[in-house]
């Protein structure tokens, strides 16, 4: 793994035309180029919007579902956990192809339902202002079950004695949740959030398969940008530099998450 990272770093200091094989050491020129490359920053902006929307929705949903499906008041907990976890087992490619049909502006089931309710149809994937959010929702649907399971494991690791002691002291369910569950659960939520953030920086499958980063770069992510630079423009050096900058952004965001969530504990 370190070897691959090292190669990308070394590559980033060269102008390397992949297919012609010519390489030339150019120092930080690739980085300077990226600083002024509008399309790269569009991809960074899209990625950050995507992962923000996805992670916020996903973690809130996972927390809610974890609390619900860990509560002894809920019936058939195992069944619901399995159902909610099921999309995690589906391949991204199959999901992307299926949702491209579901979201279709004329033939997708969502717009057919809207049409039956006399509501205007929505360009889920063809409206550049909506496409990114439509893709975020797909990942929320797919991955919530995974993080729900992680959070349930975290819930179940909280000692029961604390709740019993709180009950003895007269704390109601809400106070027990706020003052026992969440403080002790925070670490697990942080782990889930950091993992999810790092992985969502790598988002490639859905925007590539469904839209190739379009329409008009509306769903262009950093992973797609790197791929296009490497295999479309044969600019392996620039792709390496973009990968290094992407990795630095991931590190900064992860560090901020740790600081924010741990610091306020």
């Amino acid at each position, binding site marked *: 793994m370190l070897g691959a990272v090292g190669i990308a770093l070394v590559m980033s200091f060269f102008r390397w035309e992949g*297919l012609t094989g010519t390489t030339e050491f150019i120092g930080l020129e690739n980085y300077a180029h990226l600083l002024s490359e509008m399309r790269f920053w569009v991809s960074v902006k899209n990625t950050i919007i995507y992962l923000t929307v996805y992670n916020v929705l996903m973690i809130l949903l996972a927390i809610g579902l974890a609390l619900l499906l860990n509560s002894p008041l809920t019936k058939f907990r195992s069944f619901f956990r399995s159902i909610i976890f099921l999309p995690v087992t589906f391949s991204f490619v199959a999901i992307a192809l299926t949702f491209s049909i579901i979201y279709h502006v*004329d*033939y997708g089931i969502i717009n057919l339902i809207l049409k039956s309710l006399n509501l205007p149809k929505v360009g889920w994937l063809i409206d550049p202002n909506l496409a990114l959010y439509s893709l975020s929702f797909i990942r929320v649907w797919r991955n919530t079950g995974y993080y729900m399971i992680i959070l349930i494991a975290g819930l179940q690791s909280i000692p029961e004695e604390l709740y019993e002691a709180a009950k003895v002291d007269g704390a109601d369910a809400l106070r027990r949740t706020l003052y026992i569950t969440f403080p002790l659960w925070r670490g697990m939520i942080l782990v889930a959030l950091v993992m999810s953030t790092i992985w969502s920086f790598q988002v490639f499958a859905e925007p590539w398969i469904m839209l*190739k980063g379009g*329409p*008009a770069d509306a769903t262009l992510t950093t992973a797609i940008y790197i791929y296009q630079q490497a295999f*479309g423009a*044969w600019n392996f050096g620039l792709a390496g530099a973009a990968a290094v900058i992407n990795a630095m952004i991931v590190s900064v965001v992860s560090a901020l998450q740790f600081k924010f969530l741990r610091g306020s504990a």
Partner: protein
Amino acid sequence: MPKNKLNLLGSVGHKKFEAMSSEEYKNAVSRRKFLTSIGGLAAAAAIGWGLAGYFASTPRMVEKTTTVVETKTITQTQTITAGTTPTVTATASPTVTVTTTPTPTITTTPTKKVTLTHWHPAHTDVHKVLDPAFMQKYPWIEVKAVDLAIGDLYDKLVASFAAGSGAPDLFACLWRWYPTFVPKFVIDITDEVKDIKDAFYPFLWKQATHDGKIYGLPLWYCPHALWYRNDVFEKEGIDLQKEVETWDDFIEVGKLVTIPDKQYAFVICRAAYGTNHFLSILNSRAGQLFDSNGKAYRNNELAAEVLEWEYDLIHKHKIASHEVYFSSGFWAGIKEGRFLSWTMHSGAGPYNLIKSAPEQSGLWRGLAWPLWGKGKPKYTGVWGGGMEVITVQCKNVEEALIFLKECFSTDEALWNWCQIKKFVAPNERLLKRQIEGPGLDYCGGQNIYRLFLEREAPPLNYAPKWSEVETIVGKALDEIAISARDPKEAWKDAEAALIKLLGESSESPPAGI
């Protein structure tokens, strides 16, 4: 228990070891000795097997078929009179030349099997016919054909050539990939194809030539026609064959059949794949995006005009919708009758309609590419074409050449391509067979190949880094189709990006027609 000794006698080992005398223990087989012996025996067996195979192979049987070639000079004229079915009159002044290639020495068949890998984009139904017959004829050559989507095929080829390994022995090289892969990554077959020069038209051989050398067999040629739902137009009392000569004529009749949000006279291809559709339109106006060196033109007004024309069809005349051709949305639109016409070559138009919308058999017709004005040259556009090539990573070039010539140059093989894939024939003999043959049932018995007789496709230049070219032009198409962005502004940005990617041409762009 001694850990470095094996007890070959079974599970009561340690007791046995304890019961042994020191002399017996010394003689017991150590684990190291045992494994070394087994390994040595296995290696010896492998070497022996290899040597036996090598010395047992008998010399190769090389078969060259005896071919008789008849060359006839045929002048074809097509008369199209309004209201009549086109007739083709062939006035032949035949000069028959018989060429016989000598049968060389036949030796025996090798026992060593050779495997060729072949990558192609969705040609499985032809290879299902050709490959087994080939392997039966040449039993020591196994062909592994891999069907890949066009975009994936290009990306995988780029990756494998950049990496220096992993490329197939042969692949179908589309014209638009030519500047990317030729000549660095495919082999020169000039000397090997001297005896099959009449397999393809001279202009197709020219397409496969770089610096005077031939790099592939150019069997696919993809001139465009307009495919339309005749039943819908007929219902409105419109006969396209009689009423449409120019694109302006088409726009007028298109307004009569278009119902907003329900039914569109035409569908434009957008997104990255739409780049090739856009180019076919530009080509039909004798325009170019790139010069012959693959550099992008600046101030390409004709290209901006073509983009504006597509914009007008959607937003001004409102007779066109937009979709990515061959996507699920596209086929849903075709099957639902939402899209009433599109432009495509015969190898992807009728061929794909037959496969994906068989229930519409008899409803479709083809129209020769409308002219860009009365009296304008009779041009059509191409979605390029393609050729079969052998890669520099091929380790069995001789066998690859046999496969190449057998499956991609004989009239029998080419006729399979034409019949199954509905491609326009790449030589005169087969085109004559197509033109004189029966019509296509799917198109109401129309002989679709006659559509291409009165149209000529101007030459079209391509550029390297094609997938990035598609991304750039595709973005402009999305902007004008979906966001209704001003086409001149959209083209200005696309042109700047193309120049940044490929470099600027020192020539002026052609003015076109």
